[in-house]
């Protein structure tokens, strides 16, 4: 993955517009966060292969970045995005890595279901 280049991510986001796509969205502190630090409130969320069609999408911010997708009756968004990759299957993979390089958030868009 490479550090976000806004123009390239925006172009990829626009390419999926108005198409049926599969979304992977997750955010996590890791399962050991509360074990390692009892005062830490651990939380996370995960959705894989949610099928959506979005009518607009934007990546914004000064880095780490925010990405939002406007879907017919709502929104999908992720905050803390630092890296991107368009993989060999043409999927847009966005990830936010924390200061130690650990994955903190991921938002991925694909025209075919993720494995």
């Amino acid at each position, binding site marked *: *993955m490479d550090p976000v280049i806004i123009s390239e991510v925006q172009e990829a986001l626009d390419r999926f517009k108005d198409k049926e796509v599969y979304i992977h969205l997750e955010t*996590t502190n890791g399962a050991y966060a509360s*074990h390692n630090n009892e005062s830490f409130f651990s939380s996370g969320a995960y959705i894989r292969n949610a099928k959506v069609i979005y009518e607009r999408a934007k990546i914004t911010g000064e880095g780490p970045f925010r990405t939002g997708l406007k879907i017919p009756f709502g929104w999908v968004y992720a905050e803390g995005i630092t890296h991107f990759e368009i993989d060999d299957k043409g999927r847009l993979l966005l990830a936010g*890595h924390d200061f130690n*390089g650990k*994955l903190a958030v991921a938002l991925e868009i694909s025209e075919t279901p993720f494995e």
Partner: protein
Amino acid sequence: MEKERHVLVVFPHPDDEAFGVSGTIASHINMGTPVTYACLTLGQMGRNMGNPPFANRETLPAIRKKELKDAARAMGINDLRMLGFRDKTVEFEDENMLANLMSSLITELNPSLVITFYPGYSVHPDHEATGAAVVSAVEKIPEADRPKLHCVAFSRNCVEELGEPDIVHDISAVVDIKLDAIRAHRSQTELMLEEMADKLKEKDPKTMAWLNNERFWTYKFS
């Protein structure tokens, strides 16, 4: 360490075996005992992606699968079962299905010793669910026929509530194999090994004690 007929190790994540059990596994294999390692997931939700990242969410499973095979090879395990579950979802699966899966492994392999996590004392929800499934499978076997059940525990309250571990294996004779197993899980362990490099080189007593002693609690059926 007693000579076993067959050892079955059941953990949910590639690398769960490396730190706490790989020396024990290697010791059994050195004694000629067959060891089966059943690993429920491919650790798809691991967070270490490298800095700069060498992996992403979609490439990580294949990387960890290869690391798991490499670790198995390092320990000399010939029978590695990858059970196909997804990291962090084990606790949401059907408990009966999981327990039945464990029963079928036990029936097939007829192990004299099963190693897993101690339910209630193993921190990660996947560890808890895996341990619980194994316990429930062993519990169904008539007491006289049950394999021994040795559990790994590391929650903050484990010693307070379970007492000191009743089984401690000194695995220093195979510590190089253990280090190879740890190294095999490169995506997850490289950073940590870097931090430990000097201590390992100097054979720092605390680090060596942590590495050389593998601790288990015999499961207490109520």
